């Protein structure tokens, strides 16, 4: 005797996976992911360059600014290495201003800095570039120019070289926390993870949408073709419901694993094409963050953060698929289902945006409370845990609440599902569903 639940699950799963569209979508996903991981190499291939240092020509008309400026730039880039890899090749330019500008017109990446004497402000500087300079680079330049001016100003006073050296040396900054549980490494990690974590949970968000839409489309397909009547005359609505939920989640797991494989392939290709891994491209946000994470004690924390996050996400996937099945059973066509699923998607989007901005909300009771709300918790709760705003106990509460939600969805949702799947009329829909809930 065939196990009908197993059979229905496998049929539903195969219908999602063994299609040309699944293959096409995954080929595209693989290309996109591998491409994203190697975007700097791709851009380089078409003329972009993330690996070379920024070239700065200096025309020092003051005769005293160049060396000080170079020293300041080295100090500043060293101090800011934790937030970015900014490297400069600074050289004295022997030609005229016009020649330098002509050179910039040809090689658009070069910047020119002209130092001149100034009667009132000691020195003045002109920054010449072909186009715009990004904010961080500009601020680094401006800081170095300011420091250069300060050094020259101090040097022109009667201050000794020894004192001048003391003034120029960066002071030691010791970080202390009243909260004994806080550590400098965690502070760095918070900064890093507020950037990285939303990127890592984006696939969860995408897979949720995919899961809801797939289950909705399948249930609606069986309803609109009336094959539902034949299926339900042979298997119970409960079996049918669980088969859809299991198959949907199985599909999402397979898709998630495939995304990991594609990311792995992208990573390997990057390693092979760029062994030093010392690039300065778009994807370095993740790679550099990874390097930074390894410097912190996050590796230990990941041992419980990853399993807790996965458990919470898995239970949330189940809850989403239950909701999708229930809503699909209530609607009579895919268009109605898509309208009905919008509120779920909005909840998911809210969770995603809150998690992206979580770093801004330290201490907010509302955000902490929202991290317990089922469906939102899957994204927000791990984000807050990573940032250290909530503890393991809070995540466990979120998991428990999510499990209660799943239980209630099964208990009451199944009643709606039983009535909904054989209902082909939208008139008096909500009344029918409330009646079903009471039965």
């Amino acid at each position, binding site marked *: *005797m065939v196990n009908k639940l197993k059979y229905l699950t496998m049929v539903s799963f195969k219908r999602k996976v063994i299609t040309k569209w699944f293959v096409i979508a995954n080929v595209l996903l693989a290309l996109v992911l591998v491409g994203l991981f190697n975007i700097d190499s791709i851009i380089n291939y078409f003329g972009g360059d993330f690996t070379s240092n920024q070239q700065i020509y200096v025309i020092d008309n003051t005769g005293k600014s160049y060396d000080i400026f170079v020293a300041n730039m080295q100090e500043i880039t060293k101090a800011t290495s934790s937030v970015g890899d900014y490297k400069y090749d600074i050289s004295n330019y022997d030609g005229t201003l016009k020649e330098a500008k002509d050179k910039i017109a040809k090689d658009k990446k070069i910047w020119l800095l002209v130092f001149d004497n100034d009667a009132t402000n000691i020195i003045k500087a002109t920054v010449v570039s072909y186009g715009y300079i990004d904010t961080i680079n500009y601020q680094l330049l401006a800081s170095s120019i300011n420091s250069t001016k300060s050094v020259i100003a101090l040097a022109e006073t009667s201050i000794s070289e020894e004192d001048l050296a003391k003034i120029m040396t960066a002071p030691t900054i010791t970080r202390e926390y009243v909260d004994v549980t806080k550590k400098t490494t965690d502070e760095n990690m918070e900064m890093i993870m507020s950037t990285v974590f939303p990127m890592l949970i984006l696939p969860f968000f995408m897979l949720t949408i995919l899961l809801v839409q797939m289950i909705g489309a399948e249930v609606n*397909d069986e309803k609109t073709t*009336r094959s539902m009547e*034949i299926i339900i*005359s*042979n298997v*119970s609505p409960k079996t049918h419901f669980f088969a859809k939920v299991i198959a949907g989640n199985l599909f999402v797991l397979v898709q998630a694993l495939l995304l990991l494989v594609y990311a792995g392939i992208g990573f390997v290709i990057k390693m092979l094409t760029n062994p030093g891994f010392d690039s300065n491209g778009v994807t370095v946000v993740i790679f550099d963050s990874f390097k930074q994470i390894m410097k912190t004690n996050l590796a230990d924390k990941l041992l419980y953060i990853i399993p807790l996050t996965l458990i919470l996400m898995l239970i949330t996937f189940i809850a989403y698929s239950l909701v999708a099945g229930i809503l699909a059973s209530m609607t009579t066509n895919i268009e109605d289902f898509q309208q009905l699923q919008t509120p779920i998607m909005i909840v998911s989007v809210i969770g995603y945006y809150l998690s992206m901005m979580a770093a801004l909300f330290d201490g907010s009771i509302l955000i902490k409370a929202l991290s317990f709300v089922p469906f939102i918790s899957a994204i927000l709760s791990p984000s807050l845990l990573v940032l250290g705003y909530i503890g393991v106990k809070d995540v466990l509460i979120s998991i428990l609440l999510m499990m209660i939600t799943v239980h209630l969805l099964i208990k009451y949702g199944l009643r709606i599902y039983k009535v909904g799947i054989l209902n082909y009329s939208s008139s008096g829909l909500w009344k029918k569903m409330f009646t079903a809930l009471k039965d």
Partner: protein
Amino acid sequence: MLKVNNITKYYGTLKAVDELSFEVLPGEIFGLLGVNGSGKTTTFRMIMGLLEPSSGTVTLDGKPINYDITDTIGFLTEERSLLLKLTVLEQCLFYGILKGMKKDEIIARVDYLLNKFQIPEYKNKKIKELSKGNQQKIQFITAILNNPKLLILDEPFSGLDPFNVQFFEDEIKEMAAKGSMIIFSSHRMEHVELFCKKLSIIMRGKTVLSGELKEIKERYRKKNIFVKGDIDINKIKLIKGVVSVEAINDQFIIKIAEAKYVTDVFNIISKMKNITKFSVEEPSLNEIFIEKVGESYGQ
């Protein structure tokens, strides 16, 4: 034996089926007739166990219908219940396995039935690529895949040409001969007359006429007299008991209120010229249906 015992079904305050009862024995073809919205589909759903009756019972061989015995039932719904993206074989495998059949058994049966219905070339074609008539054939095949003990056919001839109707008729009769219980619903009364020995006509969920087809026709007092020849219609209309006279093609149909008026009509017509046909026949089921349902509509 299928026993539908006094079933009633309410949808909210609407009574969709009202104390309906009938029995179908092995080898019998039972006709359940009614206009759209009369409660046929609700009745079928209750028989299939898809809906719970508000009161009354449905039993098959003395047992209530549940998922333990639905594997022995075949169901053809009024609307196409096929997954259009699947191939014919995939669809048959899907429904067959849900009926508890084995894969090899299904494939062998599909081959047999596709050959019987003269469409073996469609085995691996997608259902959406088939014509409406061929889709109906596939739907019928999926309903009889498991050689059901009880077969429910809701409008089985929908979308079929006369040639294919004949295929269906032969198969249905063959199944009945093998002992299957068959419940049949159709708007086409000539089909019902061909198959059903017993029938019920329902209106707003309530039985308005029920019994053996032969008895129903006998009980029906009106008769039709078919006449060919040169007759004076106005003279015939004046005969007591004549309800109407219609000229259809090369013959006349004289409807009389009761059989006892046949002699009076015959005596007058026999005096008219070129009479080549005088035949007294039972009214068609269609006439009975229209009259009975019409009465009910009026109420």
